[in-house]
């Protein structure tokens, strides 16, 4: 009984070390191959369009409603202290420092991250990745490197879009619906936000881009090595779910770590 438990802990530890090692080697290989010639410019543009441009609508929708909710909640909280004029600061700082990068990363994970994991997983089970190897094409370079560049471009830009739309959302509820002076709202936004807030938000979105892309692509790429979720289509489904869940959890963990380091 005790031997069995120790055995289980041991095999679990070995599995975890192996898996972590695999992901780090995958990330390292992908990063190195970004710079190997010929540069994959067209593929980077194509993936930027998929990850970035096609996520714009969902980011704008989430951004506007997040800003509107913040405006609403903020107004009714601040009015208790007679400080409703500070609404602009509250909305802008909350969005730029925290909610913007985090919610943008989570929304991109849901839309593009899951698609990446599923697409690469299908490529794995239908031997397309093996086919690349037989053609002397490095699969990590072909599949992962352009996606990571596209994510590093898209995440900060979409975060900026989320922040701006969110601030507009806060203006709609705070100023247009609840009657705060529009000029004061805008003044508070520009007065309270300093460059360090914006930089901090972008650092987060940059880190999230690498985390999300690595987790989602590696889950798809190593679909054949996981045994818990079944094989074939079930395996791909398991990898996709795991990719999304792990990405979201890691976004929140990294958010805390980066915030702690930046403050």
């Amino acid at each position: 009984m005790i031997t069995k438990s120790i055995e289980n802990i041991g095999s679990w530890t070995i599995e975890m070390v192996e898996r972590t090692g695999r992901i780090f080697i995958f990330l390292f290989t992908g990063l190195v191959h970004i710079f190997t010639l010929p540069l994959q410019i067209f593929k980077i543009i194509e993936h930027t369009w998929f990850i970035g441009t096609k996520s714009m609508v969902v980011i704008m929708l989430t951004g506007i409603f997040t800003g509107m909710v913040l405006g609403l909640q903020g107004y009714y909280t601040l009015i208790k202290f007679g400080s409703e004029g500070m609404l602009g600061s509250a909305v802008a700082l909350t969005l730029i420092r925290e909610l913007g990068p985090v919610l943008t990363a989570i929304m991109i994970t849901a839309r593009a991250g899951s698609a990446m994991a599923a697409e690469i997983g299908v490529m794995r089970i239908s031997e397309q990745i093996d086919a690349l190897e037989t053609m002397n094409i490095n699969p990590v370079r072909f599949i992962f490197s352009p996606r990571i560049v596209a994510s590093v471009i898209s995440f900060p830009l979409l975060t900026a879009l989320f922040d701006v739309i969110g601030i507009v959302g806060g203006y709609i509820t705070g100023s247009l619906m609840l009657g705060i002076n529009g000029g004061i709202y805008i003044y508070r936004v520009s007065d309270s936000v300093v460059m360090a807030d914006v930089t901090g938000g972008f650092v987060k979105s940059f880190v999230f881009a690498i985390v999300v892309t690595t987790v989602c692509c590696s889950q798809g790429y190593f679909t054949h090595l996981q045994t818990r979720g079944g094989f074939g289509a079930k395996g791909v489904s398991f990898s996709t779910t795991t990719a999304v869940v792990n990405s979201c959890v890691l976004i929140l963990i990294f958010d805390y770590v980066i915030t702690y380091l930046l403050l």
Partner: protein
Amino acid sequence: MKSPLIEFIDVKKSFGNNHVMQGVNLSIYEDEITVIIGKSGSGKSVLLKHIIGLMNHDSGKVLFRGEEISSMSRKKRVEFKRNFSYMFQENALFDSMNIYDNIALPLTETSLFSKQEIKKKVEMRMEQLEIQGTSNKYPAQLSGGMKKRVALARALITEPAIVLFDEPTTGLDPVRKNGVHAMIKSYREMFGFTAVIVSHEIPHIFEIAQRVAMIEKGKIIFQGTSEEIMNCDLNDVRIFISGDGDFLE
């Protein structure tokens, strides 16, 4: 005596407790069609994947022109792989790419050909394989036979010295199966490559094979010509070729 192009010496491979190859000894010769037969799950595809390095063996040696593949330097391995093309059982075409891009992929990704040169080569192969007019279509829009030809075009675009076929006729009707066999034979004559074919199509596949090997219980139990296997006295070979039901028991 001819020396083998590819040689397996006492190669063993296991997946957990499943011992797929238990000491495989096999010789594949240049400019020949070698066919590997055996029951489903007997390790034919695993054997084929060992040739091109998609899988690594646990022990033994796999030699290419007398040199062990696993001990080749990275640079030499890249050169070695350039000799090969692999046609997968389910074609492994890229669903999200059109037919032209699928065929051109080995050239666009690994070589320094100009766009014009690549276009010329792809169009020539498409014409030879009678798949003109499908350039802008996607694999899902083609029939099984057409997909096979696209996969073959992709396999031949780099003008390889050796082509590995993993059950190239799976899922095809008898007429198309014979068509694929005839296609492999005629294109081998046309392009002059060495072919290794994993197949279940007995006895039709013997018509195009110069050499046949049978794998059974993780070992090669027979190697010889098509005529020799047809007249083989070994019980397992004889029963397998005749398709006797008792073999399953």
